């Protein structure tokens, strides 16, 4: 998932749709994010490349909407409802996820196992 500056970022992504859960007067998604361009990327336990300043999923509430929708810990979030998440600050990411008007967020996430799966399938079924 490393990127070469100047070149477009390519990744294998999965679409995940999470319905926000109404808890009292808050709408929660049931996971925690970490990372951002204003944070220290070396501390990120989930990133492969320690200079990756993207937004990662650090914690999933068990049984929450995120887990139900298929989000897993360690996923990198590439887009939220069309908004880019690869070059945002931590606070901007939080704001895009917690908009009160929306009760559904559509994420594009990527993880290592996706790449592997694609490689396997490519390998087993070589495309012509």
């Amino acid at each position, binding site marked *: 998932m490393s990127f070469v500056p100047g070149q477009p970022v390519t990744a294998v992504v999965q679409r995940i749709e999470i319905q926000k859960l109404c808890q009292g007067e808050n709408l*929660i*998604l049931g*996971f*925690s*994010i*970490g*990372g951002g361009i204003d*944070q*220290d990327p070396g*501390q*990120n336990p989930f990133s492969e490349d320690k200079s990756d300043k993207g937004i990662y999923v*650090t*914690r999933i*509430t068990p049984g929450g909407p995120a887990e139900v929708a298929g989000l897993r810990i360690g996923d990198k979030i590439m887009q939220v409802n069309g908004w880019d998440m690869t070059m945002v600050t*931590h606070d901007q990411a*939080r704001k895009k*996820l*917690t908009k009160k008007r929306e009760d559904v967020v559509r994420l594009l996430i990527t993880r290592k196992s996706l790449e592997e799966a694609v490689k396997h399938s490519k390998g087993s079924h070589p495309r012509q």
Partner: protein
Amino acid sequence: MDNESQYSGYSYKSSHSRSSRKHRWDDNWGETTTVVTGTSEHSISNEDLTRVTKDLEESTPLECKRFIGPALGGCLSFFALITPLAFLILPQVLWRDALKPCGTPCEGLYVSLAFKLLVLLISSWALFLRPPRATLPRFFVFRCLLMVLVFLFVASYWLFYGVRVLEPKEEDYQGIVEYAASLVDALLFIQYLALVLLEVRHLQPAFCLKVVRSTDGASKFYNVGHLSIQRAAVWVLDRYYNDFSVYNPAVVNLPKSILSKKMTGFKVYSLDENTTNNSTGQSRAMIAAAARRRDNSHNEYYYEEAEMERRIRKRKARLVVAVEEAFTHIKRLHEDEAGASPKHPREVMDPREAAQAIFAPMARAMQKYLRTTRQQAFHSMESILTHLQFCITHNMTPKAFLERYLTPGPTMQYQQQSGRGRQWTLVSEEPVTSGLRQGLVFSLRRLDFSLVVTVTPLPFLRLGEEFIDPKSHKFVMRLQSETSV
């Protein structure tokens, strides 16, 4: 027609003796005298104060009551210790031939009896044969209980002995020896009971006592165990002599000049028709008016305090310098130096003479300092000289010599070794043999001040446990913020 004007007051309190003046040349002298109120009629100088306290201390007679308790206890324990020996000896003396001889078991019993008696003797000496430290106003309940117990016990043993052994002239000597051995066993157990009741029970702390001196508010907190009020009072007084700084009647909080201004500024005139003398109303009105008036006595107090502080510091500096200089005038003569220089013989002095020699330059500074800190009643010239001699003998530095005068020490430091003891009065609303409990207040009164003691129980502690695995101490740097959405 002689008008006598007399100064009232007790004869030992006023330094002016009773003066009766007869004014034959002015018959109306008494009528036109202006009487000055607001100043006290009793005036006392400091020398009188010390003399009075000394008189009162020595006038308490040596009470024989002090020794009755221990004497009684001593007799009883002597009686109790002699009894087993008497039990053994009496049959031998009275009807030796009729006794059945008993061999080894008796000898074993003799040895054990002897050792138990020895142990009883030694432990009685260690525990109970101590000079009493205080006379209590009421009976010391536990001690009386134990003495009664011992007495009843020994008396009943004698009773049985008289009936079963002396009357029928019992022949079984072994039984008699066993009887005596059982008495000694029981005495050992009573001594154990005495040890627990008198010495051990009150060791575990259960109450916190707050002791406050009524004149200057000096206070301390102590932890005690379960004691009766009178025993707790003795305990507190033991600690009082060590922990509390000496009571100085010459040190007052607010100087009179400031206090007197507050209350004598107003006169109350009642303009009512009915002249009912409402004194409480008057005094209340005065107090309210005094409070409302804008007075600067706090200002005066503050500046007076600051001035006094400065004065004390200046005098102290002079004193310290004088003493340091004085101490440089002498030095200790070592053995080998004695015969070293026969050309310049130096006068060899003993400590007393050395002290007198160096006292002169520092005497004035010392006197001024003591007067400023109002300690001059506690230190006479003689005592200062003695202390100086003491310090020189033990190679003390000037600072060590001055330690005694720069801070007011505990009361113990100023006690003269008189065998008469100190008279304290225990003032309490509960009977003094009842035990301590929460909220109890009693006070210990002396002539001019009292100690007020408040009792609170110590809190019950609920101690919980939390185990921390030593391998669980792990740390990470926290520069990554994590937000939950």
